[in-house]
């Protein structure tokens, strides 16, 4: 065995370095391999999900709220995309200039806006739901710190004209009044949602993950309203409020045969876009709420109908054959005392004394004369012939004391309550006191007389329209309340009121019109009658074959206009004339 000699062998330094580098490279490759394995295999699901979450956007898709149309397809309400303008105060470099510019363009208070722009808030809304063109004008000024995001808004292109019909939605698009409230579920639709991947520019990544559940738009409503007639009726009511200095005026136009509401108006009017009452008197009102007259009195308000209700008393008496039109009622005085000393006690709180509107001598009167002259005393005598139970039966049959079933927000049912042992209830009810009705209930009752004794549910929506087509409304009830013969007699009596009685102001040139005036004192807060009245007129035309019923109520007119004949009948005449023109009804005597 050879023995090593000389100096011991040493490693080549170059070779050692190469080995070390080789080891490092191998270790690095192994590290990268491990890392790749970890990323691609071990943490793959977690990282894929993380990446997706950065690219994936989930967006709720708000459904388009349904539109509302009149019977001719005129648009009454629709939703459009608007912009809500907001600011980040920290980023607004010139708050004064911004406040001035925006104040001028949007009509917001510049000083208040300046205060908010210089506040500590992180975010402030400048104005929500600004229409596209205006928003573009504001954004076009390129103000630093001012931004916008899209937000749908409800628009009412008819403005105040159909405000009491459509009602309105709040800033979040929830129905608050009118059709918007009643049909909120139908109009609202069903929200959808979209999930998709987007790139850094916000664009949808082609071939990326998408999951779209489309929103289902709300249904459109086709109403029975005739917009031009609605405008004319509202104009007549607004003029009546000015002319008579009344608190308000309400009117409804009803199709006799179908029960369709052709117009339903109130004054003062309000703008559904701004939800502000348009009445100059509101500027002086102590409380801003005092002038927020959004409630539709035609459907939701109740009042004592006064003499307009005599129509039901007389129709019942004729139907029950208790009287004939020419039956003579003897010794009709101008006052009647149902409780001892009620008329001469000098105390207004004592009930039981009923007087005619005008003083007159005691006389014999036919039933027709009593109706035409609207004698309270004579009407009470007719009511007494009829009896309390039968009168109540007919009042109920004509729809008093219960909701008509109209498709409108929270309808009032009125009051029809006779206390047990009440000695004056029959007399009061016979002449339209001690009961309370809505104007729509009275219109429907008169429409029954125009429709040969058949009562029909009033309604305001003809159909609902969606992508699958048009669906007619259901649930239109009809019921017979008096015979066609009685209805015919009542129409002639109503015509005589307009031709020679208290309702001459309701006449329409060229047509035979029938109607009845009503004047009822208003109850004060202390439950005592005041000097203020509710003056009303309900009538129909043409009397030979009625097509339209119009009911008008003027609330608290000035004393010189306190009666239905003076305050409400002229409004009725104006509205009825327009309605007959709109429907193309031939003037009487010109039919073939």
């Amino acid at each position, binding site marked *: 065995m050879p023995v090593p000699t000389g100096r011991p062998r040493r490693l080549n330094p170059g070779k050692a370095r190469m080995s070390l580098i080789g080891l490092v490279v191998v270790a690095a490759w192994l590290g990268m391999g491990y890392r790749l394995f970890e990323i691609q295999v071990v943490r793959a699901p977690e990282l894929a999900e993380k990446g997706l979450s950065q690219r994936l956007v989930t967006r709720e898709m708000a459904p388009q709220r349904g539109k509302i149309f009149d019977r001719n397809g005129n648009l009454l309400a629709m939703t459009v995309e608007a912009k809500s303008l907001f600011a980040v105060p920290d980023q607004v470099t010139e708050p004064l200039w911004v406040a001035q510019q925006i104040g001028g363009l949007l009509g917001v208070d510049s000083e208040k806006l300046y205060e908010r722009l210089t506040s500590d808030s992180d975010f402030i809304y400048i104005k929500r739901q600004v229409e596209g063109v205006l928003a573009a004008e504001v954004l076009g000024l390129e103000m630093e710190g001012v931004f916008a995001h899209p937000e749908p808004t409800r628009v009412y292109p*008819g*403005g105040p004209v159909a405000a009491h019909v459509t009602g309105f939605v709040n800033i979040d698009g929830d129905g608050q009044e009118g059709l918007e409230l009643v049909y909120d579920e139908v109009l609202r639709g069903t929200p959808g949602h979209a999930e998709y991947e987007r790139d850094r520019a916000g*664009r949808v990544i082609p071939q990326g993950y998408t999951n779209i559940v489309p929103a289902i738009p709300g249904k459109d409503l086709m109403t029975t309203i005739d917009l031009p007639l609605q405008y004319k009726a509202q104009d007549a009511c607004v003029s009546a409020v000015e002319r008579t200095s009344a608190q308000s005026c309400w009117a409804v136009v009803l199709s006799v045969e179908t029960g369709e509401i052709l117009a339903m108006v109130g004054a003062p009017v309000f703008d559904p876009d701004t939800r502000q009452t348009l009445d100059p008197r509101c500027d002086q009102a102590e409380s801003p709420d005092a002038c927020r007259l959004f409630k539709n009195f035609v459907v939701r308000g109740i009042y004592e109908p006064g003499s307009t209700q005599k129509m039901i008393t007389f129709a019942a008496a004729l139907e029950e054959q208790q009287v004939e039109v020419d039956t003579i009622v003897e010794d009709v005085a101008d006052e009647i005392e149902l409780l001892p000393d009620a008329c001469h006690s000098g105390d207004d709180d004592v009930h039981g004394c009923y007087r005619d509107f005008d003083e007159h001598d005691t006389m014999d009167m036919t039933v027709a004369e009593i109706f035409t002259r609207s004698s309270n005393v004579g009407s009470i005598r007719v009511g007494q012939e009829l009896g309390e139970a039968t009168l109540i039966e007919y009042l109920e049959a004509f729809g008093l004391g219960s909701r008509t079933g109209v498709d409108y927000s929270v309808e009032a049912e009125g009051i029809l309550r006779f206390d047990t042992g009440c000695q004056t209830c029959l007399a009061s009810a016979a002449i339209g006191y001690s009961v309370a009705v809505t104007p729509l209930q009275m219109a429907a009752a008169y429409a029954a007389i125009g429709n040969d004794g058949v009562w029909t549910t009033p309604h305001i929506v003809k159909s609902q329209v969606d992508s699958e087509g048009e669906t007619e409304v259901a649930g239109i009830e009809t019921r017979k309340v008096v015979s066609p013969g009685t209805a015919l007699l009542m129409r002639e009596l109503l015509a005589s009121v307009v031709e020679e009685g208290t309702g001459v102001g309701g006449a329409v040139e060229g047509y035979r019109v029938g109607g009845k005036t009503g004047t009822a004192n208003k109850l004060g807060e202390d439950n005592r009658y005041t000097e203020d009245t509710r003056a009303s007129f309900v009538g129909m035309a043409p009397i030979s074959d009625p097509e339209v019923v119009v009911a008008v109520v003027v609330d608290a007119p000035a004393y010189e206009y306190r009666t239905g004949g003076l305050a409400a009948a002229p409004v009725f005449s104006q509205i009825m004339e*327009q309605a007959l023109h709109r429907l193309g009804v031939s003037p009487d005597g010109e039919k073939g």
Partner: protein
Amino acid sequence: MIMALIAVVAFLGLGFARTSLDRTAFDLAELNKAIEQQLALNEQLKIEVARLENPARIAPLADAMGLVIPADTHQLLVDLDTPSPVVAETDGNGANQ
């Protein structure tokens, strides 16, 4: 060699097709956005038309121009069951003589 060439061409073709598809998809997205904008504009125009047709705007203008509803309405009634007293004569081509 030929197989390799085919593979390269196929790879490049696939890449080109994929790029074209993506570009088309982006174009489509842009077009959809444009459609949405046009639909929004259309809705705005509908509102504008409805506002212009509002009787509350038109009626005062009509009044200012002196337009009124005729106070005295007459209607002409034509009895279609009775033959017209005037019988138009026509030539062979259907033209009135």
